[in-house]
C-alpha cells in the first residue's frame, strides 16, 4: 500500500492517465452485463455526490448532512424542465445545478452564523422540508405519484438509452466535477475555504469575508449535487421523493467520512466501497445502513482521517510543483 502511494505521488500525471485508461476500458469489458454496468454507473454517480458534499464538509468545515435535499432539488428541476417544458438534457444539467445552488444560498443566508452541530441540524431539517414539500405540492410535483416519462438524453443526435451510454455520460460529469473542484481548490477561493475550516477568526483577520465565502462554498458544493440529481432523473426516467430520504443523505455523508474528507480522492474511494459493499452483501439488503455505520466505526478506529484522507494522496490534490512527502506531513 505504502509503495503504491509513493508511486502515485511520484508519477502524478502517469497515474491519472492509467486511471483514465481503466475507467474508459471498464464498460467495454462488462458491456454485456447490465448489472455490473449499473454498479459502475452508481459508483460514479455517488462519486459526484460525495465530492459535492466533500467540497462543503471537507474543505470549508461546514457540517452539512442534508445533501440529499439538494440532490432532490436537482432531480426534480430536471424532471419538471424535461417533461413539462421540453428542455434538453444539456440545458437541464446546469439549470439543475444552479437551482440547487440557489436554494443553498437561501438556506445559507440565515444559517451562515451557525456552526457545527447547529448547522448540521438545519441542513437535516432542510433536506426533510424539501422532500415533504415535494411530496405534498401535488399540482407542481405530482406528489407521491412522482414524475415519470423523462426522455432519454441525446448527444449530437445520438440517443443515450443504454447503460453503456449512461456510463460515459456520468464519467464525463464526474471528470468535469473533479476538474473544476481541483482548479477552484487551488486558487485563492479554495485557500480561503480551507482557511475558514482551519480557523475562522484568523481567516477573517486575513481579510476574508468569511460569511460570504461560507455561503459561496455551500452554493459551489450543492451545485454538483444538483447536477448529479439531473443525471439521476434521466438515468431512471422517473423521479419520486422516496429516493431522497435522509438515509440517502447519510449514505453520501458516510462515503465522505469513510473515504477521507478534505481530499479529492477520498470521496471517490468512499463511493466505491460503499456502493460495492452492499452489493457484496446483497442478502443483508435490509441492513444497508448498518453496513454503513460499521464502515464508519471501523474507519474512525483504524484510520480516523479516512481511507485516502490525511495527505496520503496530497500530491494529487494540490498542484504538485514541489515534491510532497519530504516533510513530516506525509
Amino acid at each position, binding site marked *: 500500500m505504502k509503495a503504491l502511494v509513493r508511486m502515485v505521488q511520484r508519477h502524478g500525471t502517469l497515474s491519472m492517465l492509467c486511471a483514465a485508461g481503466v475507467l474508459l476500458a471498464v464498460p467495454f469489458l462488462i458491456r454485456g452485463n447490465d448489472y455490473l454496468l449499473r454498479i459502475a454507473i452508481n459508483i460514479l454517480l455517488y462519486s459526484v455526490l460525495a465530492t459535492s458534499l466533500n467540497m462543503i464538509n471537507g474543505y470549508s468545515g461546514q457540517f452539512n448532512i442534508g445533501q440529499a435535499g439538494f440532490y432532490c432539488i436537482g432531480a426534480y428541476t430536471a424532471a419538471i424542465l424535461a417533461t413539462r417544458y421540453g428542455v434538453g438534457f444539456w440545458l437541464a444539467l446546469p439549470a439543475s445545478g444552479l437551482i440547487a445552488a440557489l436554494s443553498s444560498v437561501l438556506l445559507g443566508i440565515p444559517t451562515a452564523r451557525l456552526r457545527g452541530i447547529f448547522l448540521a441540524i438545519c441542513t437535516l431539517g432542510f433536506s426533510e422540508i424539501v422532500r415533504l414539500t415535494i411530496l405534498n405540492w401535488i399540482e407542481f410535483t405530482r406528489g407521491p405519484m412522482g414524475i415519470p416519462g423523462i426522455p432519454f438524453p441525446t448527444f449530437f443526435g445520438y440517443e443515450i438509452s443504454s447503460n453503456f451510454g449512461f456510463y460515459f455520460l456520468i464519467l464525463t460529469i464526474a471528470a468535469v466535477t473533479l476538474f473544476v473542484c481541483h*482548479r477552484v481548490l487551488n*486558487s485563492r477561493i479554495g485557500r480561503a475555504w480551507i482557511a475558514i475550516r482551519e480557523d475562522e477568526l484568523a481567516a477573517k483577520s486575513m*481579510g476574508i469575508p468569511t460569511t460570504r465565502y461560507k455561503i459561496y462554498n455551500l452554493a459551489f458544493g450543492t451545485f454538483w449535487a444538483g447536477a448529479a440529481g439531473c443525471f439521476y432523473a434521466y438515468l431512471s426516467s422517473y423521479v419520486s421523493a422516496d429516493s431522497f430520504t435522509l438515509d440517502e443523505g447519510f449514505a453520501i455523508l458516510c462515503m465522505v467520512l469513510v473515504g477521507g474528507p478534505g481530499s479529492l480522492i477520498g470521496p471517490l474511494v468512499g463511493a466505491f466501497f460503499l456502493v460495492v459493499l452492499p452489493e457484496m452483501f446483497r442478502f443483508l439488503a435490509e441492513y444497508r445502513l448498518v453496513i454503513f455505520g460499521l464502515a464508519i466505526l471501523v474507519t474512525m478506529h483504524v484510520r480516523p482521517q479516512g481511507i485516502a484522507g490525511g495527505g496520503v494522496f496530497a500530491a494529487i490534490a494540490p498542484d504538485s510543483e514541489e515534491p510532497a512527502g519530504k516533510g513530516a506531513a506525509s
Partner: protein
Amino acid sequence: MSDVILETRALSKHFGGLKAVDSVDMSVREGTIHGIIGPNGAGKTTFFNLLTGLIEVTRGAVLFGGRDITGIPPERVAGIGMSRTFQNIKLFRFMTVLDNVKVGFHTRTKTGLLGAVVRNAAFRADETFVAEQGLELLDFVGLRKQAYNLAANLSYGTQRRLEIARALATDPKVLLLDEPAAGMNPSEKSEVMELIRKISSLGRTIVVIEHDMKLIMNLCDVITVLNQGLKICEGTPAEVRNDPDVISAYLGHARGA
C-alpha cells in the same frame, strides 16, 4: 516628528461591570515601534481586539490614518492596512507553511471562480505574484526551507514567525503583535527581536504587546502601560522604567506609601 497613524480616543470596553479597557487614549506615530505592557489582565489583548474589530467597542473611537474606523468588521481591517498576530497562535494548521502565507494575500488578489477554472492570464498573474512574494516573505522570516511542510508540524517559535509572515502578506502599514516572544527561549527571543527591527526598518509601524521587559525596553520607541484597563503611563522606555505608578502596578505599593 512623524504623523500619527493609529489613534484611540477614550476607547472603552466594558463587560458588564468589568471595565476591561477604560477610556484609553493612545497615539501611535508612523514608523515607530510602540510597546504595550501591563500586568496580566490589564486589558492589552482586549485593546487589540477593539482595534481590529473582533469585539464591539463600548465607547470611544479608533482612528486609522485620521479616518474613524470604530466598529469596522474584522474582515475589512486587513484591507485598510492593519494586520495582527494572536497571543494563542492561530495558524491554519493543516495547510502548508506557504499556503498559510498565500491566504494573507487574499485582499491583494482578485481571481474569481471562472478565472480559477480556466486559468486565465489574470489568474496566472495572481498566482505567480502570490507564490513569489510568499516565498520571499518566508525567506524574510527564515522559513523558506519549511515552505511545503504543514504548519501544524512547526515548532512553537517557528509558528510565531509564520504568523508574522502571514500578517505581513496583507501588506500592513501597522502590524499588531500580541506577545510575539511568549514561550520562547532566550536565543529565539533575540531572533524575534531582530525580526521586529527588520520589519520596522522597512518602514512599517509596529505595535507590540509583550511581557518580556528586556525585549520591550530594547525594542520600543514609545511604551504605553495599561493596568486594570486604564492607561497609567506613556513614554520612552527610560521614562516608563522610572515611573512610580508603573513600579507600583508591577511590584505593589511600598509599605506606608
